[in-house]
């Protein structure tokens, strides 16, 4: 059942992402709204699929790599819809829904509804750790999206491309600011996620750090994001370098998935 709902949600997601992107590029308000409506339907569908998955496996659906991608994709879509509705950052339609869609699609390629091992006594920690870490990575996905758009716009300005290309996107300052704001939300969540992960590891293995890929990649991401924050606050480094680092940091955060499927 979860798979059927997920497939329908994915179809809505793909159509919505396409319409939203076309609407943004062509300044088509109707297409944009239709895209947002379909993405909202996808959001509801993906949430329903997650609930059904939890019921089917009798466990919190955030314990495997595919589940991580599924929840992360849903979180990213949630943030996109919130951004779309509240801040009027329409250009995020070009990046966030496709990223979220790829995450959900990748998750759906795996057997997401297989049964879990029995719940552990440390289940509560696991739920808290995975939820908060995933929410943090979703916020960092917004930072990633803004950084990508920043680099596109910066490149167009440096290459002195026709103005039409530049006009589709928010101002350079806005993209830099929004990316940084998302980082300010995502970094503390990621920090708490890593810390609770260490506590969970301590409870499970009697060691705070087991040097698995799912520990190493988030740690590298954390170091990169800490570096961005330090460079910004201490040295005033913003713009292009900050954007490139935010993209790299998000890539490492995403690689946690590799550690989870191994």
């Amino acid at each position, binding site marked *: 059942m979860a798979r059927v709902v997920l497939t329908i949600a994915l179809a809505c997601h793909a159509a919505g992402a396409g319409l939203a992107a076309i609407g943004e590029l062509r300044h088509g308000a109707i297409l944009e709204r239709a895209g947002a409506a379909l993405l909202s339907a996808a959001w509801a569908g993906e949430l329903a699929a997650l609930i059904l998955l939890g019921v089917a496996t009798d466990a919190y659906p955030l314990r495997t790599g595919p589940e991580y991608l599924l929840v992360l994709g849903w979180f990213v879509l949630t943030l996109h819809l919130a951004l779309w509705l509240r801040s009027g950052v329409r250009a995020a339609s070009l990046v966030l829904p496709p990223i979220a869609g790829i995450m959900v699609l990748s998750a759906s390629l795996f057997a997401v509804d297989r049964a879990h091992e029995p719940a552990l006594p440390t289940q509560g920690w696991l739920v808290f750790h995975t939820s908060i870490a995933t929410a943090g990575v979703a916020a960092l996905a917004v930072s990633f999206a803004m950084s990508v758009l920043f680099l596109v716009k910066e490149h167009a300005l440096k290459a002195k491309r026709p103005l039409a290309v530049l006009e589709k996107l928010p*101002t350079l*300052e806005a993209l830099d*600011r929004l990316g940084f704001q998302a980082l300010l939300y995502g970094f503390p969540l990621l920090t708490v996620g890593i810390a609770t992960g260490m506590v969970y590891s301590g409870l499970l293995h009697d060691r705070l750090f087991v040097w698995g890929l799912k520990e190493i990649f988030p740690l590298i991401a954390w170091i990169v994001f800490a570096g961005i924050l330090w460079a910004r606050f201490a040295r005033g480094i913003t713009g292009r370098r900050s954007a490139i680092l935010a993209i790299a940091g998000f890539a490492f955060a995403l690689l946690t998935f590799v550690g989870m499927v191994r």
Partner: protein
Amino acid sequence: MPTLVGMNHRSAPLDLRERAAFAEAEIPEALARLRESCGPIEAVILSTCNRTEILSRGDEGAPTAAHLRAFLAASRGIDGETVERHVYVHEGTAAVRHLFSVACGLDSMVLGEPQILGQLKRAYAIAQASGATGPVVDRLVQHALAAAKRIRRATGISRHAVSIASAAAHLARTIFDDLHGRSALLLGAGKMTELAARHLAASGVADVTVTNRTYARAETLAASLDGRAVPWDAYEPELARVDIVLTGTAAAAPVLTKAQVRRALASRRGRPLFIVDIAVPRDVEPSVHELPGVYLYDVDDLQESVDSGLTQRRRAAEEARRLLDVEVASFDRWRQGFDLAPTIAALYDHLHGVGQDEIERYAHRLASLTPEQRAVVLDLTRSLIQKVLHVPVTSLKSAAQRGEAGARAALYREIFGIDPEGRPPLRAIQGGKDD
């Protein structure tokens, strides 16, 4: 039927346009004189530096284009033959289309320029305050203003820069969130620099610092821009502070080097710096553009933006004209419905008259009825007429929505032998019933 008579930058030379123009203070009196000489018509006079137009509308027997031409000639002291040669006349749907085009900036010298919208709004406000407008002109101008806003938003026709100065301001707006409160440094105090600076100031740049080799000229320009002047050898610290640098000196070699800008970047904490070099030969070393967070645009780059802006405005204008057709058709449907009002009212009057006559003819046979029974007969007659007319009137209104009301209304008038002349308008349209 609306009639529009006017002259613009395409139809008349500048000296004639100057003579034909109405000062804002003259318009109320001109409207009063127009209504005095032509009867109770609705009218608006739009007079800008590039056009003078009189839009009018009246019932049958209202002034024709010839009346309006004669009025324009007489009121501006221009001979009739000259007016005849240089004015254009649009009637009915053509007048509606012309007004909508004007509001969208499609008839402007600079395609898509936005000022005309405000000028039309002002002309309408004056006409309204003078009591010169009525239901059709009210609806027409309001529709033109609303349609222009919709079309401008949908096509983005006003967005693209069409001059070097506006291209610079436009580019600045793609880098900075808001130009209000931004700071600019002007290197040079020549005419071109001043023009570009005024454009930036009009876009919100408030803090302007001017430097020039001749300090007195820097002071003069700074004073006219509400800014401040700094000596030529003391401007470098400003590079670390300002958001925009505008250069336009007559120097033979670059006056702003990569090393200078790099030094400034160290204390800018990553804030972007937009440099506009409108000098030929160039004032800024081209390699400055390679520095992180620095965006240097010279005259050629800006010209490219202008060319691209013009192309995009032309493309947007084509789209705007397509959208305009829809808006004109929508107004025409409303107008046809409005024009039907006297016919529909006459139709109801006629049939109710027939009913009344018949009741009177049978009065002696109805004499035995009680007052209550007589009231029932009257109600029955009225109700019967309303029901009989419901379908034909609905069909007539539907025909108006399709733009086919004229012939059908004529047919109705012929079949029922009615003459709508003298009927008060809107009676039937508003109430739907003749009661």
